[in-house]
Structures are given as C-alpha cells and as structure tokens.
C-alpha cells in the first residue's frame, strides 16, 4: 500500500492508517510534504534558519517576518533577518530499548519514534542541514555522524529500520556515551519513552546540554501506558523485565493515573529547569501534529 492510493491528509490524520505505509521513507516524506504543502503553516522559512538581526521595514518585505513584538513596544516595523546556517547539525537520538516495542493500539512507540525521526531528518536534509543518528538502549547501539551528503537520508533510514533492541533502558549511560560523539553544537532530538529514573535520565541530558546543544525531547508513550486499558482484569507484562502482574485496571485506574501524572510532572519540571523542550506524545496522535507542535514551540522562542 502506498500513500498515493489515498489522500495524504487522510493518511496523515490517521496514525494507524499512516503507519501501515511500510516504507519509512515514504512516511517521512509524506509528513514533511504534507506539512510544507500548506497543510500546516510555519511562521518562518527554513528549518534551521536562525535569527540574525533586525532591519527596518521597507515596502515589499514579506510581512511574515515582521517582528510584531517590537512593533507593539516601539510602534515601528522591523524585519527579522535570518542567517542560513549551513553548518547546523541535527542529532537524532532514538531509544530502541525493549520498552519502545510497546504497541497496544497496533503502533509501537519505536515505529512512531523512527517515523518522526525520519521526518525530521528529511526536513533538515532538505534544507541542507547535517543530520546524525544515534540509536541507544542501555548504551549506544549504532551511530551515524551528522552529514548532509546525498546518501545520508538513506543511511539514516536504513539504520532506523532496525528492529528494537532486546536491551533494557539505561538512558544516562547512553546519553553520556552519545554526547561524547556530538562535538558540534546543534539540535539534539531525543525520541524515547523516558522510562528510567529521572535522576539518571537528566544526568545524561545534562551531559548533552553541557556541550551547548539544544535538546528536544520527544516523550513518546503508548496510550495504555498513560491511561490504563478499559476496565477489566488484565495480566500486565513489563517488556523490559518480563515481570507480570494481574490487576483490575478499573480498580486501580485513579491511583495509577495519579502516580503517572506525578511522574510526568516531575519530568516536565526537570526539563524546564534544564531548558529542555519536551513534547509529550502518544502513539495515537497524528505525526504531523507532533511536528507542528515542535515548530510552533520553537517559533515562540523568537
């Protein structure tokens, strides 16, 4: 099945349907093309464009680049100028631990993460940015240095089509290990469920931040991980430890939600402290929305 047999916007809006597109490349391209075709507006051109300076408005300038905040303060029109950073680097850190294979609604977190990572890579490479990839679990499993050569996208896709590892998560060690290879300052996009102790998790992220990277945390969860399945007694199995336990989902739902929300809040607070952008996602959310969410957040910074 290819994305050409259906309207792209339908596929993009239905994650389950979209993920049936077997080709990762097609999915990545589909997301980006759909995004760039006006389905979602971006306030600026260029993924890796970085703000440079202000200049006065002259007639004929694109009003999309007016700095409206300045106008509100000074009642004068100024245009933003961007420098296209040809040496901008995008580092994709994808969690391939066993826990990422959770797929309660048919879409695994791993597939979701790899598709999103491929979309970001495609967008960046399209703008001639260098993109690197690190696959990690309890350590760095595979790593591609950031490049913007013509074959880089396919190399990335090939690495991303690996099956999830059987290893457990050790995010701190993996991040420390990955940070050693990410010398050039750039954007680090982490795709993980973050199931680890927050101290260890942010210890590793701090190592990445130390190298002046901008960190983007795509926190990907399965819908049933955030909110338990419907009311019935179930046997829950931990994908990484293999531990099982029987529980009545309905009976413990409130307590579980409370506990899970408390954990997410702690993650969010730590991200805020370390100036890390966290984007919570569940695998039942459309991938394009994930992309848009990031870009909107990024635009608010400028």
């Amino acid at each position, binding site marked *: 099945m290819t994305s050409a047999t259906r309207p792209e916007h339908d596929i993009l809006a239905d994650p389950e349907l979209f993920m049936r597109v077997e080709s990762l490349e097609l999915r990545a391209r589909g997301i980006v093309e759909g995004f760039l075709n006006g389905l979602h507006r971006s306030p600026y051109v260029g993924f890796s464009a970085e703000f440079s300076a202000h200049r006065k408005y002259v007639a004929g300038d694109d009003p999309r680049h007016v700095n409206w905040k300045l106008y509100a303060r000074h009642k004068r029109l100024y245009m933003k100028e961007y420098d296209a950073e040809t040496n901008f680097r995008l580092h994709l850190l994808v969690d391939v631990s066993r826990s990422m*294979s959770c797929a309660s609604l048919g879409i695994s977190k791993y597939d979701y993460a790899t598709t999103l990572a491929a979309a970001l890579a495609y967008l960046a490479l399209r703008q001639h940015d260098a993109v690197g990839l690190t696959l990690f679990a309890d350590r760095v499993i595979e790593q591609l240095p950031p490049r913007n050569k013509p074959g880089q996208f396919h190399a990335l896709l090939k690495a991303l089509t690996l099956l999830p590892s059987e290893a457990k998560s050790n995010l701190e060690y993996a991040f420390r290990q990955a940070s050693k290879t990410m010398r050039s300052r750039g954007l680090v996009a982490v795709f993980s469920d973050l199931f680890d102790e927050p101290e260890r998790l942010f210890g590793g992220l701090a190592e990445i931040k130390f190298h002046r990277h901008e960190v983007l945390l795509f926190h990907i969860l*399965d819908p049933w991980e955030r909110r338990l399945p419907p009311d019935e007694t179930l*046997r829950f199995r931990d994908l990484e430890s293999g531990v099982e*336990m029987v529980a009545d989902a309905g009976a413990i739902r409130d307590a579980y939600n409370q506990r899970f929300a408390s954990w997410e809040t702690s993650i969010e607070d730590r991200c805020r402290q370390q100036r890390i952008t966290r984007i919570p996602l569940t695998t039942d959310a459309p991938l394009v929305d994930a992309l848009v969410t990031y870009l909107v957040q990024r635009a608010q910074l400028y």
Partner: protein
Amino acid sequence: MQFIQPLLLLGAAAIAAPILLHLLFRPKPRIVELGSIQFLQEVLQQHTRRQRLRHWTLLAIRCLALIVLAVLFARPFIQQPQPSGASGRLVVLIDASASMARASSGEMLWRRALREAEQRLQEVPAGQEAVVGLFDQEVHALRNNEQVDSPLVAAEIVAQLQDLRARGPGLGGTDYLAALRWALGQCQPSDGARSNRVCLITDLQQTSAIAVDAWPKDIDVEIVDLKPDAGDAPNLFVREAVPAKHVLRPGEAASLLIDVQPKNVSLKTPLSLRIELQSGGERKQLETKLEHLEDRHQVELPALGPGVWHGEVVVESADAAESDDARHFALLVEPRYKVLLIDGDLKAATPASDAQFLEAAVRLAPAGQEFEQGPFLLTTKTTAQPDALEGVDQQQVVMVTNVPSVHGVNVGSLLDFVRRGGGLMLFLGGDGSTAASELLTSQLGISQLRSRAADGVPFQLATWDAEHPIFAPFQGSEQGVLERVAFTQIAESRVSEDWRTLATFQSGHAAIFERTLGKGRVLAVATGCGTQSGNWPRTAAYLPLVHQLLLHLVGRADPRPIRYMTADFDHPAGIRESGGRWLVANAAASESEHQAWTPLAFRQKFALPLPSLQPVPSTSTMAAQSSPDRLRPNEWWPWLAVALLCLLTLDTILANRVRF
C-alpha cells in the same frame, strides 16, 4: 436452641458454591505488554492488600449469608424452661364453708371439692411443693404433722384429703379475700423461672367482695366452679334464735326470738319448729308450727330451773342443705346471790350511815337493765350485833363497811367463810382503830391502815386494770365515767404481796385491790362506801361499780356470760364453756343464702387476672402439640431475616469494590 425444620439445615452445605466460585472459576486475564509496569507495581502494592482483605471478607459474608438462610428456613426457637420440681408452687384453696355441705347431684359439694383437689395434686410433678388451705372465714392450712412450717408434697396432701372425706365442711362463712391473700403469701418469689399457680375450688357463694391488692399477673388463678344445683325447693334455714334475756332468775318467764328465712317463701304446709333445751340431765322440748314466715317469731319457753340451758331450734325442711336447719342458743338461769352487809359504822342505821348508800346500790338495777328481782339478796347487820356472822355460810358474799371501826366481829369465822369459798368485800374508809379491825386487816396482810383526807384536790381514780372483768362495763360511758369519781377521804395502807392492785388513785395509793384466801376471794376498797368519803355514791359509776365488785366475788363479773360466735372448720357448731363464759357457735347465716357468682364475675370482683390463653403445657403436651405451621412467639426468624438482609447489603457494597 431447637429447630422446627431441622432438615433444612442441610441447605448450609450450599456454602460450597461461593467457595468453588471464588477458588476455581477465576477467569484468565489477557496479557497486556507495557513499556514499564513500575507505576503499576507501586499502586498495586497498596491496592492488593486491600483487595485481598475484601476478597476474603466477601467470601466470608456470602458463606455466612447462606448459613443464615439455611438456619432461617430451619426456624430455630428457644425452648421455654418448664417449671421444675424445685420451682414454683401449687396453692390449692378448698372452700370449707357451711354452703359446701349442700348436696348437688347426689354428692356433697365438699366431697366433690376434695376430689377436684386430689386430681390437681396428682398432676403436680413429683417433688414440686403444693400447699392446701381449707378456708371459710379464715384459712386452715394442711401441714406436715412433724414439721409444722414445712409444706407438704402433693402425695402427702392427697393422703390427708382422703382422711377429710369422712369429715364434713365447717359451718363457717366465706372470706374469699382472706383465702386469696393467704394463697398469695404462699406463692414463692417470682424470678421468671418459677410458675406459681393458685387453684380455687369453691361454690362461688356470694359474699362481700373486696378486691385483692395488686394480684401478680404471672400467678394464674384457676377457679373450679362446683356449680351446685339450684334445687327445686327453696332453702329454708333458721337465721337467728336468740333468747329475749340470756340471764334469768329461777321461775322467770323466758321467750325465744326465732328468724326463719327466706321470707319470700309461701309455705304450702305449716312449717314445723322443734325447740330442745337441756341442762345437766334435765331436758325440755316443745314444738310449734309456723303458718307463714314473719320477721321474727316469739316462742315462750317453759319455766327453767337454775343452771346453764343449752338450746337448739330445728326447722323441719326438705331442702338440700341440712346444716342450717338448726341453730343453737343458751340461757343462764341464776338464783339471787345472798349478800351480807356488816356495817362497821358506829352510827349505823341512821340516815347518815354510809351503809345505806350501799344497800340502795345493791338493790337497784344498773342503767340499761331492769330487774324483776335484783341479782342480790341483801341482809344488813351492824358490827354491834353479836350474831352478825350467824348463818354466814348461807351467804355468797360478806361486805364490811367502815373496817377501821368494826368491832365484835368474829374475825376467825369470817376468814374461815372466805377460805371455804365465800367472797369478802372490805371498805377501808373510816376513822378509828379497834382490835377487831386490826386483827382482820393484819390477818389479811393489810398494815398501817390510816385515814387520809384530801388536801384541796380530791382523790380520783387514775389507773385501773381495763382487762379485768370488774371494769368491763366502764369501757363506754353508759355506766358512768370512773375518772370523775372523787373522794375526799381515802384509806392508806401497806399490803402484803398476796394482794393485787386493780385500781389506783392519782397519788399512787391503791384504790381497789384483791387477793385470794383459800377458795375465796377478798376485795378491798380504800375508801368508805358513803358520802363521808366524798360525793362518789351520787355518781353514775357508784351503783354499777358496786354490782361489779359483788359479781366478781361470786364469779359473775362478766356482763355477757353467754357469747355467740360463728362456727368454723376447727370449731364446730354447739355450746362450750371457756373461761367462765359459754360460747354458742352456729353456722354462718350468710352461707344459707345460696347465690353464686359466675367465675368471670368473681374474677372481676376480686381483681384477679383472666386465665392465660393457653394453659402452661407440660413437656409432653408441648412436644405433642408442636406443628410446623404454628408460629411460635420465641422463634428467631425475625432476627435471622434482619441479619440476612444486612449480609446481603454488605455483599452488594463490597462486591462493587472487589473484582476477581
């Protein structure tokens, strides 16, 4: 605890069902893989403990509910404790009044009552106490001959009742209130386990009815109504047979007043009355016929000689009650008592003589009485007369006035007269002292005799022995008031221990005292008998007091020597002498008026509870009467139903919070 449907307890085996359901048929849950179950583990750690507790609690509640349901259908009840042999008492009251002598259906009510009592006593469990009281106007309890206060067991009482068959009931009246109160006193204290019962066997003869105070509701009263036959013929009975005068002189005319009841009966044939009189070996009889019944019939009796005459009036009637056809009466025919008055006053035979007051008093009749002839035949002499004591043995009493001045009296002969049974009355007032008076007083134990005049305040009687027959007429004021008798002069003396003081002055000196001497008696009055000692001869009490003093000396101080009483179970009808009196016992007249209450009316009159709806059953009857369809008051099912409802409610609440 016992069960009406014990087989249904097997339903409790149904508790195996929830156990099996809980343990065996638990659904296999489907597997859900999550990236991490660490949060589940944290939450479940707390939750599992609660769930496990609720799980087993729910199982226990369901098992208990099934058990309660099974027990509910089995209908448990608590067996009421049966009265044991050592608890509770049967009190049987047997009517022994005169009306029980009636025959009914050929059998005397009395014997029928005894048979009813025996039957109930034989139903008493072995060892249980039973008390039987025969009652008329009082209760006569059957007691153990060896232990008077120990109640008998039923078997012993039955034996005593059989002995009573030969003996008829008494002739007394009926006092139900006394009988019921006695029965109440015989009941043992109620403590819930005891069951006292009272069985009243009677003909329910109507009497005065006074309700019993607060009859306990837990003491059943069984009334055995003997239901005597009404009878075809009216019950004719002699209600009263009373002489017009009970004390007569020889040859004095006597009449008898007779009351025959009922008055509303018209005699088809003249009613025969027979009157029998007996004194010693002498018998007299007369008969009369009554054409019709008047209020009272007066029958003249024949002349009677001296002595006590026992009389009986018998009416010839053919009714069922024979005991009330006769009535006893008594007559006392007494000769006059010979009294010798010896006046010791030197001024004797003068109008001022004190003895004249005494003479007049002896001859006159006390207030309320009339003498054709007085009770005393008086002879007066003075001490100056040498033959003063001649023929003294013919006398019953010798009175000596002005003792201090008496002279010329043969003291020895006088005292011998007393020793032989004569009576001597001495008036110690007066002046002087003679050898004869000193001898007389010293022989009698009287010393230091001297006159004492009142100093302004006259002497008066302050105390006297009210129980003594001399003073019996003075309990009222008809015969004068003794406290008002005043003396201006009294005689003080010291007396020996042989004397007994009967009355005193307010100064504490003896006023009247007596002693025995041989077979006779001596009375001493510490004053004169005339106006020299004061105005007392003119008081209303003078004459009756003199009579009483004399009658006491002849043994006739009791103004009512013949007394009538109602016969009872222990005192049959008839005449007997007791303490110088003649007691005439007759059957209670009220027992002859045969009107009976109904048992219900009787209970209402005496405020007795209605009988229990169900008699107290014995163990055997209770078992025989047990029926699964009957609802017993001591069943537990209401409580079990409430418990089951509570358990089901708990189950509903808990089941919603526990999932398997």
